């Protein structure tokens, strides 16, 4: 059972990574609009003109 002394800190380290990733994504506005991004893959498929988005605006 002493493996628990390793496994719990390990599990919690993974949790920390997940939480940090989550906080980053919320801060950078990934959850602001949950509708449009789902539609975008449908439309970007056959992009004739290579993307002219010179620079995407920094996320709000």
């Amino acid at each position: 059972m002493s493996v628990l002394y390793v496994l719990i800190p390990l599990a919690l380290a993974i949790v920390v990574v997940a939480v940090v990733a989550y906080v980053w994504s919320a801060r950078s506005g990934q959850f602001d609009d949950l509708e449009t991004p789902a539609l975008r893959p449908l439309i970007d498929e056959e992009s004739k003109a290579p993307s002219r988005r010179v620079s995407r605006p920094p996320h709000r």
Partner: protein
Amino acid sequence: MTVGATTPRPVANLPTDASPATRVACVHCGLDVPGPLRRGDGPSFCCAGCEAAYAVINDAGLAAYYGFGVRRRSPVQASGRAFAEFDHPAFATLYVRERPDGLGDVELYLENVHCASCVWLVERASLTVPGVASAELDVGRSRVRIVWDRAATPLSQIAQFLDSLGYVPHPYRGARGEEARRVEDRDALIRLGVAGALAGNVMMIAFAMYAGWFGGMEAGFERYFRWWSLALATPALVGPGRVFFRSALGALRHRRLHMDVPIALALAAGYLQGAVNTVRGAGPVYFDSVATLIFLLLVGRFLQQRAQRAAVDASELLASLAPSVARVVEGDAVREVPVEALLPGWTIDVRAGDTIAADGEVLAGSSRVDTSLLTGESRPVAVAPGAAVFAGTVNIVAPLRVRVTTSGEESRIGAILRDVEEGARRRSPVVRLADRAAGWFIAAVLGLALVTLGIWLARDPARAMDNTIALLVVTCPCALALATPLAMTAAIGRAAGRGILIRGGDALEALAGHGTLILDKTGTVTEGRLAVVDWTGSDHVRRLVVALERHSRHPIAAAITRAWEAGPLPAATDVHETLGGGLTGCVAGNTVVAGSRAFVRRHLRDASVAMPDAADGCTGAWIAVNGAFAGVVSLADPVRAGAADAVEELRRRGWAVELLSGDTPLVAGRAARALGLPEAAARGGASPEAKRDRVRDALRAGPVVMVGDGVNDAAAMAVATVGIGVHGGAEACLATADIFTTRPGLAPVVELIRGARRTRWTVRAGFAVSIAYNIAGAALAMTGRVDPLLAAVLMPASSISVVLLAWRAPTFARTRA
């Protein structure tokens, strides 16, 4: 409301003889193409708008648009405007942000955005305009964010382009508060996620501990687990859990109690005792309960905030549709500038049908002005050179030149709006049911805690502290605190589906009681436009009158045309309109005169003939044929169908219904009678200020609900306990409304009151359930039978019962309106 969004060259009136077999679909929108527009070769279009959009799309090399299965199935409705005001410096300072790299960044609200194909079209097609660096559409909010090179392309060109595709652009007016709200939303989301992750992991460790409890566990492991759960519960408490302590301290500082006070108490007691017991290595710990509690409470808060935010978003979109342009006369030229840039002394050109953009004095032209927005008067007022006109009123008949005297905040409408903002800020908050309960709750819990402590000190001092803390934890009013927000959120969500947008739960709570309900007459109770109610002449004359009247745009003429236009009518020739008088013309060989009493009398052969009055409280139009008096048309603003029943139900539910109107007392009295109200309950001739004062008076007797639709009601609505804006109302009115409906009439108001009652019932039922759990928990704790496992089971069980209750309760009907 949709100024500028006039239907473009509609061909809808053309006869459509399309049988299914010969049906021709518009290449752009897929609707039937009317016969005359069909082309044998090449694509056919249902209207010029679609044809133009098709050309634009093909020129841009985006014909793939037509390969999408799901497309917008509606004809293109371009406004065809120049959008010159989008290039004005004042517009830029208000709505355009300059990015560090020198590009401009603007957010526009687009009409007619629906689906995936819109995303594709708007984003792709915008990029074909030279100078556009990026365009990103938010479908849910119908907003596009455009980054472009200001030196290369004027914004008006981009606006015209979007317009030509049928997406009429408007400046997004909510942008200023937007940034703060975005940050707030993200913070709430972060708190929720972090609390959830921590609660989940504390729970996982707690499971191991409970298993060890029953199956036996080495003391070393137990200590190890305890320290880990302490390590996880600490960030949950000082991170996401901090909001409860902050709000509890705030309440105590103002010497008030609300639900966060007992919550903070329970969280602190549970955590501190757990920490002490962890360090000393004995006694119960409640870290799993504490962490779960924080998570569940945050979920409730998050849901409530979201529901309210959706309503606020919707109202801001409506505000964005307000007219933004004024036509300034400079020499011979007319230039479009944003309303915000108008200065006193300038001359503006106001076309018939346009909203006047500033207060001013008429220089040239004579017309009639619809002032109902400002005064509530349903009859248009005649204006001539020298007359004062006000911002927000609508010019109806003929073009006017107006010299601006005051604009923006200084104008009369601006002053009313300032008043409104102040009123909204000063509005006393509704005391929440949950907050009233909080005081009793704390008293009861603290009393029981003392009793427990006393009893156990006498019986078994070693367990006294543990049992007292167990009582505090197990009685944490989690379910009690969730009952209100969840029931409100569920109700607000359901109401939105019925076209009733509620911005705050407090309003719903106030509506569940009773008090005074004040209705604005024009547009709320009545149709807001004239209709024929009586005619004293013959059917033959009636046909002559309508043949003449359909040539005029005057509201009376329009009402007569609406009521009587049927079948083939004789042609009218020599039609002449005298402003402030009436119409003359020749119909089927007869000279027909229609207009005011004095005007018609001048055209009578025998000027001494008696001409009867119009029906009581009505506007009249007198008719003469070939110099002889032929009858009088009585017109009134009719009470909406179903309004009388609605008022009857409101009164039955304990509301004292009153009618306030800017119209004359006679007209107001007539409407009151039609509603089944005593005439004493109707007040006519009420200015916006008088309405506000009436609401203040009524507030002394209890809660006041103000239902209105115009700027003239906005001040009163801001002062009232609850302001309800009805469909078609002015933007200012929607801005102050706590609730607004997207359906006209009083039916949604009745539905709202019913729903509010049911919501209150749901909240109370939730209270009863959670208090029952708490009583059971307190009894167990006092007898020393609560251990951490029982606490961890009891607490979520009570919360879940409250959640189910709130979600299943039939507050508003589920069907969409």
